[in-house]
């Protein structure tokens, strides 16, 4: 559980740094809140950047299947689940 939380935190920091979000801190991102639309309001280019930074940092490979991605990009929690299940580093 603690490991999970540190991964959550890591991913939040990656998101904030990668996207250079100005008014958002890693602490302000809720683990289960939606990243797109209502939540953080990220867009399509943001998702590409998140995908690329996760691939770089954890050696995961994000397949472009939209249905799979919809689940993965739900929230920080779902991103972490994906990373945990697929990481190579």
């Amino acid at each position, binding site marked *: 559980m603690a490991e999970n939380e540190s991964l959550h935190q890591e991913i939040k920091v990656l998101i904030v740094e990668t996207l250079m979000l100005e008014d958002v801190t890693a602490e302000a991102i809720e683990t289960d809140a939606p*990243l*797109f*639309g209502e939540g953080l309001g*990220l*867009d*399509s*280019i*943001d*998702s*590409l*950047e998140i*995908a*690329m930074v996760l691939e770089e940092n954890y050696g995961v490979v*994000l397949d*472009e299947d*939209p249905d799979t*991605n*919809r689940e993965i*990009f739900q929230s920080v929690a779902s991103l972490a689940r994906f990373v945990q299940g697929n990481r190579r580093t």
Partner: protein
Amino acid sequence: MSAEEAPRGADRTNWSVHAERGSWWILRFLVAAIRKLGSAPLRPLVPVVALYFVFFGGKARRASRDYMERMRGLSADLPGPIFGQTYRHLRTFAFVILDRLELWSGAIGRFQIRLHGEQCMRELIEHKRGAMLVGAHLGSFDVLRLIAREYGIQVNVIMYTGNAELINRAFEELDPSASVRLIELDPHAFSTALEIRKCVNRGEFVAMLGDRVHPSATGRRKVRLNFLGQPADFAQGPFLMAAILGIPLIMSIALRRGFREYDGYLTLISEGGRVPRSKRQELVGRWSAEYVALLEGYCMRAPLQWFNFYDFWGRE
């Protein structure tokens, strides 16, 4: 989604709620007619349609008149009364639409395209390397489709649907050629950019229009640059995508030269390669500025082929 079903409550002056008049069914009928009879019977109707819009076109006519006044102020070669210029502008638009219909009715062989600067494209194709092609609502974007066929490459056209793109969708249905694929761009969906990456990874080309900004675009996704004497918003998406993916960026414009004749201009803006995050802003800014400068040049060369019939310089 038809034009009438465009998002309600949205700013009515915005391009995204404008639809090129006419419905899908009329288009289908026209293309079928052209397929059977050729475009000759329709050509005499073009001036009639243009005149109709000069008198009853409302927004389109106003936008055209304002644009023509602007271009005359910039000493584009546009003699005669403004009424006549607006008429010629709208007539040119109708001719380009008719050409598109004819192209897609299967008469590709009747068109002549003179390519300029295609060397950059040839080299990429040789190395099976994908690239971002950035165009504008100037002349005909469809000529790109011809280039795709000619070179046997896959082009993925990324655009918003639900407005003027009805036309494109009709074309897609009429000519489901494998060389051009339409990908819907929903800036709030998360998958479009990933889909673009997939195409590029396969060595395919991706084409986007850089002159219109989606109404929902935030400050991060647009840039205000001087264009024909006044600042206007331009999309950052194509340029950002090229930087993030490290792919070559080519500006692609096709201008109508005459009856079934076009000039295709390809200009390499960036050779691609990894862009460090710290350099991205600067590079994207430089590419956008180059794109806008080139676009100005094309506009001055072919002032009647600018097909953004809304207040392009207006603030949202």
